[in-house]
């Protein structure tokens, strides 16, 4: 009886809010027309919807997600954020993205668990130290904190590192990027969905886009498994599946979908206080706030749409980790998963608008960097869609660069593991 009474009390919305039982976002009726339709319910799509509704007054927005929001890369990445890319255009964008996290936490009134623990990249050769020197200069030129360390300084930051001559690839130095760190990726998806819904955007899960309608030079709508939806503007933000979506209008992209794998160990006492990454071992690792060591990096080189991990890679990862963090020997892996990375030839994303058709926007080719940049990209893509003109910061990322022989040079980045590994 008393339990019944308590349930009745919980019915008042005020009590629900206090108890934290309010739904973060709700369901909306699927309308037959929207001003803007965004394909893909990941961080990019949700962030764009959020900023369109909040900052540009465009509230007639729908996010269409085939599965559930955060099913794809948004929920499969290793949640690392940083701004120490190779080229100035990229550093500028990622740096703004990095500074956006604390503001976003306030704005969304939702804890994204931003932990700016810093990123330590390890160099295992003199060539890698030289590459770090270039990267540090670029970062410092763009007013981003980044410094070169010798092996002893690396050891002071991460005492568990083996800086002796024992590993196959001994540590020659490091690059430390203090402002970087980790953010909880699920929370980002939920927080942005909450914000987008609150400002009037519709989030439709289980709605799969099957075709795109055009009329002459204009986008007119999409065909879905729940009927056709007309729209004035359409944006493709479908991560690894973007190229398949763009093919619906006959648009070919320089994008290769590759499987990238990651895994976590059993929870351990805190011992690793920074993100550590190593190019020579194709491996990065950080200890989550739960104590698990989240680690990944390997990409299977053949194009494919599979998200199944492999035993071969788990063995590789265990060997690589134990080389530079020997204290992890004997620790068990708990979970392993995989996601899709849509790689471009220069390892930089493609953001463009009114491409091929009026009203068609693309935000694709993010490879394995789509998480760090999600909210800031959403902010600028929203501006792009609202004003119908590319913001200056996005102009270098136009699709045309591949037809004008202007690569962005991110493949040479010291923090990238070669040309698609």
């Amino acid at each position, binding site marked *: 009886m008393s339990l019944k009474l308590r349930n009745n009390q919980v019915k008042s919305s005020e009590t629900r809010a206090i108890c934290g039982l309010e739904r973060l976002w709700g369901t909306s009726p699927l309308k037959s027309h929207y001003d803007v339709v965004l394909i893909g319910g990941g961080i990019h799509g949700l962030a764009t919807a959020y900023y369109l509704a909040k900052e540009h007054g465009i509230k007639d927005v729908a996010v269409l997600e085939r599965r559930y929001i955060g099913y794809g890369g948004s929920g499969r990445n290793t949640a690392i954020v940083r701004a120490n890319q190779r080229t100035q255009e990229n550093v500028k964008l990622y740096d703004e993205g990095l500074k956006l996290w604390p503001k976003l936490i306030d704005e969304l009134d939702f804890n994204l668990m931003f932990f700016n623990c810093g990123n330590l990249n390890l160099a295992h050769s003199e060539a890698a130290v030289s590459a770090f020197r270039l990267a540090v200069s670029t970062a410092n030129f763009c007013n981003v904190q980044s410094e070169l360390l010798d092996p002893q300084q690396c050891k002071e930051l991460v005492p568990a590192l083996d800086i002796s001559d024992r590993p196959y690839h001994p540590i020659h130095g490091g690059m430390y990027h203090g402002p970087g760190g980790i953010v909880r990726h699920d929370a980002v998806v939920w927080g942005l969905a909450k914000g987008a819904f609150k400002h009037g955007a519709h989030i439709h899960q289980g709605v799969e886009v099957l075709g795109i309608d055009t009329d002459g030079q204009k986008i007119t709508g999409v065909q879905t498994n729940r009927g056709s939806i007309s729209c004035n503007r359409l944006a493709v933000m479908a991560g690894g599946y973007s*190229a*398949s979506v*763009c*093919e619906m209008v006959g648009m*070919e*992209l*320089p994008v*290769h*979908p590759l*499987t990238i794998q990651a895994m976590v160990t059993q929870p351990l006492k805190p011992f690793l206080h920074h993100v550590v990454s190593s190019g020579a071992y194709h491996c990065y690792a950080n200890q989550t706030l739960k104590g698990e060591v989240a680690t990944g990096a390997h990409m*299977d*080189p*053949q*194009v*494919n*749409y*599979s998200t*199944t*991990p*492999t*035993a*071969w890679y788990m063995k590789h990862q265990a060997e690589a980790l134990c080389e530079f963090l020997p204290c992890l020997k004997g620790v068990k892996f708990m979970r392993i998963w*995989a996601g899709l990375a849509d790689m471009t*030839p220069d390892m930089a994303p493609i953001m463009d608008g009114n491409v091929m058709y009026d009203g068609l926007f693309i935000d694709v080719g993010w490879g394995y960097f789509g998480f760090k940049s999600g909210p800031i990209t959403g902010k600028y893509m929203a501006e792009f869609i609202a004003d119908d003109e590319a913001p200056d910061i996005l102009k270098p990322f136009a699709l045309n660069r*591949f*037809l*004008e*022989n202007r690569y962005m040079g991110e493949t040479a980045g010291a923090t990238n593991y070669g040309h698609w590994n």
Partner: protein
Amino acid sequence: MSFTITCPICGERDVYEFHFGGRDRGPPPSHDNLTIEEYLRYAQFRTTRTEAQLEWWFHSNGCGSWFTTWRNPANNREEKPQEMSNDQQ
């Protein structure tokens, strides 16, 4: 995911023994009157569909031969396209 590729010499082997050589796209375009844009489009732009495609593979950790085989990137099975397997029957 892990799968097998059939080498014409060594037979069915683990995919990690091979080096992926990309989709077979026929001969490169003729250099006569070829514009830079056409060439760059040929070199970089391609769509990976969820259907069987003819690919180049190199048995790098094996016999060292280059060969082509059909594979479906959706499920990583070596299978020929529907119309080709119908022809054979």
